[in-house]
């Protein structure tokens, strides 16, 4: 294992051309830029349908070979590239990266990703999680958190947003770790150095690796575009999206320092998608979210102790 990057030793070269067409403050664009900053000129990127194929790929942003896959087959396109490069004796020179949103990962792309990691293909797969189908206008996905007001779970007189009977989001990192892959971790665009060092660690491993990056979405979450990093930090601090790494499917390293346990209300009140939860009659829902977060944290801590 080589040493981590510091702010002084990060590569100078960017692999992203200016001129991408994403929303101001888009967390996913930051994630994409920082991935290829580390994976460099040897990157071949496979990008699922979603925000990033539109505002990044189509915009001609990547300076490395890039293919927009279909929505659900990023994992299997990666498998084929990995196999093809191996057959041609060209595997070692390539940093193979998959990039997909939460819809393309936890929903429609789940099967092909699961198959690809089970077959032990070598690639880094990064899910930029903006917690919904943001490219199509902010519909609910399997990664949308409890209580969210989305285009397909609108708050109305009878309903108060997403999944009020569903208690927990699909934990994709633990699901991937359960495949026994060498490395799976969460990351956040609010902590770029931590994120980039995780990319570095992952890409050096000869096997499937997975990063789940919380990518705040000003447009659909409802906050000012300059607040993406602030929202990202709050997600980590409140333990809504804690930072942790899982090695070989079992050894869990939890970042307790950054996830200090700020009350979840701080995170909720900063975003319009949760504004209905601030009404007094919804106080019990906020309490429920807090108790889910506490329970998830205790679960992670219990795994980290072993």
């Amino acid at each position, binding site marked *: 294992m080589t040493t981590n990057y510091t702010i002084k030793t990060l590569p100078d070269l960017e692999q992203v051309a200016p001129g991408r067409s994403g929303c101001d403050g888009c967390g996913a664009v930051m994630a994409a830029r920082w991935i290829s900053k580390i994976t460099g*000129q*040897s990157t*071949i990127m*496979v990008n699922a349908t979603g925000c990033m194929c*539109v505002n990044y*790929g*189509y915009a*001609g942003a*990547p*300076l*490395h*070979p*890039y*293919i*927009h*896959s*279909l929505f*659900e*087959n990023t*994992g*299997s*396109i*990666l*498998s*084929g*590239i*990995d*196999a*093809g*490069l*191996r*057959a*041609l004796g*060209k595997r070692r*020179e*390539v940093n193979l990266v998959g990039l997909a949103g939460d819809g393309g990962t936890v929903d429609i792309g789940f*099967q*092909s990703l*699961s*198959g*690809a990691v*089970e*077959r032990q293909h070598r690639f880094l797969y990064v899910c930029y999680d903006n917690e919904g189908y943001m490219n199509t206008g902010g519909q609910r996905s399997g990664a949308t958190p409890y209580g969210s007001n989305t285009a397909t779970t609108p708050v109305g007189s009878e309903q108060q947003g997403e999944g009020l009977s569903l208690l927990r989001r699909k934990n994709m990192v633990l699901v991937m770790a359960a495949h026994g892959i060498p490395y799976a971790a969460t990351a956040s665009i609010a902590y770029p150095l931590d994120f980039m060092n995780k990319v570095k660690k992952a890409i050096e491993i000869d096997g499937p690796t997975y990063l789940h990056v919380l990518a705040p979405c000003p447009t659909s979450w409802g906050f000012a575009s300059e607040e993406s990093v602030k929202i990202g930090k709050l997600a980590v601090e409140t333990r809504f999206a804690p930072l942790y790494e899982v090695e070989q499917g079992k050894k869990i390293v939890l970042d307790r320092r950054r996830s200090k346990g700020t009350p979840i209300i701080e995170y909720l009140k900063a975003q319009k998608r949760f504004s209905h939860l601030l009404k007094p009659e919804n106080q019990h829902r906020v309490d429920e979210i807090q108790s889910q977060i506490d329970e998830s944290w205790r679960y992670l801590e219990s795994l980290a102790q072993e």
Partner: protein
Amino acid sequence: MAIEFISGCKAAAEAARLANVDVVAAYPITPQTSIVEYLAKDVSNGRLKAEMVLAESEHSAMSACVGASMVGARAFTATASQGLALMHEVLFYAAGLRLPIVSVIVNRSLASPVSIFADFKDSLAQRDTGWLQFYVESCQEILDSVLIAYRVIEDSRVLLPAFVCMEGFVLSHLSEPVDVPDVQTVSKFLPACDPKYPTLDLKDPKIFNVMAFPDTYEEFERDKQISMLNAFEALQEAYQDFEKIFGRKYQDVETYRVEDADIVLATMGAAAGTAMMVVDQLRSLGERVGLVKVRTFRPFPRRQLREILSHARVVGVLDRDLSIGSTGILFQELQSSLYNQPQRPLMQNFIAGLGGRDIHQGTIGAIFQSLKDTLQKGFVEKNLNWPDENREVLSIWGLPVDHDD
């Protein structure tokens, strides 16, 4: 070269091995499974140096072929029925990316109800995806067609993927003597894979599958259409070289005793062999009948068929498929090809062999009898005919036996 007694599946696997494919990506489905099993054995024994991607679905198998082909590897897959239907989305994608992938299709019906037996519905339902389609009649033809397919689709004039289709069980599990050439001889016909299309290449970075707006999308389709039609030229060259090297002759449309025939039956696949015997029997009785086998279905050989059928007075089309609500699919293609001819034959469609029902000599004899009646009457009484329908079942179900479709 060596004559071996092998099944259709084995012939397909031998062809993929001889084509020295780099990546085999597949998912098991009856009756295709043994193709991939044979290739897995070849890889396991070092007879073929290739990467196997044992995908978790056909959608992923086809996607893995796309990934492999995108970095310049020669990719192969095989599927059938539900598996091919599951690939549907990726078929358009592979054709649009102009990737020369070969998929052997072991034709099988689709659920519901479930059938594991042969008809052409699975591959014909993919006719608009931009893949070349070949339909074969014998185990030898399977092997030869896979080699011809790679040679043609890797040609820079074509660059589109291809199906080689054989009927499930009828050919896939039938053993016949097959001339299996050696690797050196095959390399004279099919050179090593040398991609003539842009790939995911670190030295020449490109972005693939971006959006085409209304000002260009149509031209992308036009481009594929032109390339698909270019395949005729590439196929003719391939057939000539193939005959020189291997001594076997192929054509996009194969004919049998049509030169002076008043009545011609057109079909695809293994039924052609049975039909030839019936033609011989009828000829011995003095009937002027002939047979056309359409080998290349995409691109559809409209011009060749117009020439071949220019003197026929009645043309029957035996379809092992049905476009529900219309007619058989080969019939539609053939009828539309002949429509602008100054002297058109009368045409009748016969649906038979669906879901694996055997197409017997008796069925084909009845078809020729019906065509002869039409010739005598001078008009077509019934466009769509079911020469081998199970009248007992229809009657139990309360369905009309002489329904005018």
